[in-house]
C-alpha cells in the first residue's frame, strides 16, 4: 500500500510540467527574504505582539521583566487615553485627503521632467531634494534649532531673532515655531493651525512626493519610445498618447506609489501617532507602545488592503496570465 502511494507520488512528481518546475525556482529568488524573515523578523514580530499583552519593565542590570496583563494595554489606549482615538481618526483623514493629491502631483511632475528640455538634469536634481528630506533628519535638526533659538533669543537679540529663526527652517519654520510655542503654552492651536495649514499643505505635498516622482520617472524611462512613434504615425495626440499609452503602462507603479503614500502617511515622522508611540517607548512603556503600534498597524493594514484591492483592479499588466 505504502509502496503504491509512494510510486504514485513519484509519478505525480514526475508529472510536474516545465512551468511548474520553473515556478519552484521562485523560492531561490525569494530565499534571502524568507530566510531573513524566519531568522530575524519573526522573533521580533512575535516579541512585539507579546509585549502588547504585558507590562514590560526594563531592569537596571540589563534585560527586562514582563508580566501578563491581558488586554489592559488595549483598554488603556482605546478607552482611557483621550488622545489616541482622535489622533487615529486624524491620521486616517489626512491619509485619505493627501494620497490622491500626492499621486496625481507626482505623476504630473514626472511626466514634465521626462520631457526633453533644457536644464532637465538640474530640475531632476532639485526635485530629488525632497527624497533626502523625507527621512526627517533635517526636520529634526531644524526643530531642535527652533527651540534653541527660542531660548537664545530672549536676552537682547530682538532684531536678530527673527532672521535666525527663519534661517533655521526656511519659510515655514516661523510658523512651526509659533505652533510649537502655542502648544507648549497650552494655547488652542486651532487658530494657528488654520493659517499654517493652508500654507503648509502645498509644501507638505511637494516634500512628500519626491520618492513617488523618482519611481514614476524610472517607470516612464522603461516605456519604449517605439510605441509612441507608432502611435504618432497613427495620428495620436499628446493627450491621447498619455491616457492610452503612458497611463496604462505606468499603472503598476501607480499602485506602488499609492501603497507607498499610504504607508508613508501612516508611518512618516510627521505623524502624531508615531510620536505617541516613540514617546511611550522613551518613557519605558513598552507594553503600551507595542499595543498602540499593533492597533495602528491593523488600521493601516485594513486601509492598505481595501485601497490596494480596488486600485489593483484598474492596473494594467502587459502579461496575460
Amino acid at each position: 500500500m505504502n509502496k503504491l502511494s509512494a510510486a504514485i507520488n513519484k509519478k505525480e512528481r514526475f508529472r510536474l510540467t516545465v512551468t511548474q518546475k520553473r515556478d519552484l525556482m521562485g523560492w531561490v529568488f525569494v530565499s534571502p527574504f524568507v530566510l531573513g524573515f524566519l531568522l530575524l523578523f519573526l522573533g521580533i514580530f512575535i516579541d512585539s505582539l507579546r509585549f502588547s499583552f504585558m507590562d514590560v519593565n526594563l531592569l537596571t542590570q540589563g534585560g527586562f521583566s514582563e508580566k501578563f496583563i491581558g488586554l489592559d494595554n488595549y483598554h488603556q489606549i482605546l478607552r482611557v487615553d483621550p488622545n489616541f482615538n482622535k489622533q487615529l481618526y486624524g491620521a486616517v483623514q489626512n491619509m485619505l485627503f493627501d494620497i490622491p493629491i500626492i499621486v496625481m502631483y507626482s505623476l504630473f511632475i514626472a511626466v514634465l521632467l521626462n520631457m526633453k528640455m533644457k536644464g532637465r538634469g538640474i530640475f531632476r536634481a532639485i526635485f530629488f531634494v525632497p527624497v533626502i528630506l523625507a527621512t526627517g533628519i533635517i526636520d529634526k535638526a531644524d526643530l531642535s534649532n527652533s527651540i534653541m533659538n527660542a531660548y537664545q533669543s530672549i536676552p537682547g537679540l530682538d532684531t536678530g531673532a527673527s532672521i535666525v529663526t527663519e534661517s533655521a527652517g526656511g519659510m515655514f519654520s516661523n510658523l512651526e515655531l509659533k505652533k510649537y510655542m502655542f502648544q507648549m503654552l497650552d494655547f488652542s492651536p486651532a487658530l494657528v493651525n488654520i493659517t499654517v495649514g493652508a500654507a503648509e499643505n502645498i509644501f507638505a505635498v511637494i516634500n512628500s512626493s519626491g520618492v513617488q516622482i523618482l519611481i514614476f520617472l524610472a517607470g516612464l524611462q522603461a516605456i519604449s519610445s517605439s510605441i509612441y512613434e507608432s502611435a504618432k504615425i497613427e495620428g495620436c495626440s499628446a493627450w491621447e498618447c498619455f491616457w492610452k499609452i503612458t497611463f496604462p503602462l505606468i499603472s503598476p507603479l501607480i499602485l506602488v506609489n499609492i501603497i507607498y503614500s499610504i504607508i508613508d502617511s501612516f508611518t512618516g515622522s510627521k505623524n502624531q501617532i508615531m510620536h505617541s508611540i516613540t514617546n511611550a517607548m522613551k518613557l519605558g512603556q513598552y507594553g503600551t507602545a507595542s499595543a498602540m503600534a499593533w492597533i495602528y498597524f491593523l488600521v493601516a493594514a485594513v486601509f492598505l488592503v481595501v485601497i490596494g484591492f480596488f486600485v489593483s483592479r484598474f492596473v494594467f499588466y502587459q502579461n496575460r496570465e
Partner: protein
Amino acid sequence: MRAKYLNLHAINGLFWSVIRYLLLIGLAFLILYPLLVKLSNSFMSPQDLIDGTVRFIPRQFTWFNYKTVIEYTSFFKGLSNTFGISFLSGIIQMLVCTMVGYGLARFNFKGKSVIFSLVVLTILIPPQTYMISLYMKFSFFDLFGLMSTFTGGTVRLMDSMWPMAILSMIGFGFKNGLYILIMRQYFKGIPKELEEAAYVDGSGLFRTFSMIILPLSFSMMITIFVFSFSWQWTDSFYSSMFFSQFKLLSNSLLVGFEGLMLEGATLGLKHGQPLTATLTNTMSLLVVIPLIIVYLFAQKYLVEGIEHSGIVG
C-alpha cells in the same frame, strides 16, 4: 496656409514650454528655499546674523561656520564612514531586492501571496516598535545558538558594518520592503515575451535573469540604489541604534552643537557660545550636498532606460 499652421504650432509649443518652465521653476524655488536660506546663513559672521538689515547676502563673508563644523564633528571621518555604509547597503539592497522582486513577479509558486503580504507587512510595522528586540538581537548576535556552542559566547556587532550588511542581505534594511515592492511591480510591467524568447533560444533561468532582465531593469535598479544610499545616509533610526562610537554624519547632525564653546565668538548669549543654530544649518548643508552630487552622477544612468539596453528596438 501651411506657413500659418506652422506658425500657430510654433507659438503653441512656445506657450507650453514657457508655462512648463514657470511651473518647474516655481516649484523648484519652493523646494530649494529652505536650503538657500541655510546656504546664505552659513557664510554669515555672527555680526551679520544679529543685524536685522542683513538679509541673504552676508556683509562680512566668513568660512568660520564651515571650519568650526568640520573640525568639531571630524567631518571627513564621518563622511567616509557614512559613504562606506551607505554604499555597502545600497549595493546589497539593490541586488537582493531585485532578486526577490523578480521572484515575486515571475513565478507562481505556492505561498507566493503569503510572502508578498509579509513584504508589505515589514514596511507597515513602525520600526520603533521592534527597536528593543532588534537591538538585543545584534548586541548578543548568534545564529541558532551555534556560536555560543562553538565559541562560547555571543558576538557584539554594534559599531561595526555588520548589522547593516546583515539587514540588507536579508531584505530588512531601511525601507527594504518598499524596494522589493517597486521591483516586483516593475517586473510585472515588463512583457513576458522577452524572457520566453530567451528560453526558446535555449537560455537557462539564471542566464536569462542576468543577461535579459538585469540590463532591462537597470534604471529601476539605479533608482533603488539611489533611494537606499540616500536614506541610509540620512537615517537616524538605525544609525543611532547601531553606531554610538562610530562617527556618522547623521549622528553628528542630531547631536548638534549645543555644548560647543568657542573663543571670541560670544554674542551676548552664554559666554563663549557661538550661534549654534547657524552651525546646525551649516552641518545640514554639508550632509545634503554630497547626496545631491551622487544623485547628479547616478542621474546619467537613470535617463538611459530601455532604449539603451539594446534589447528593444
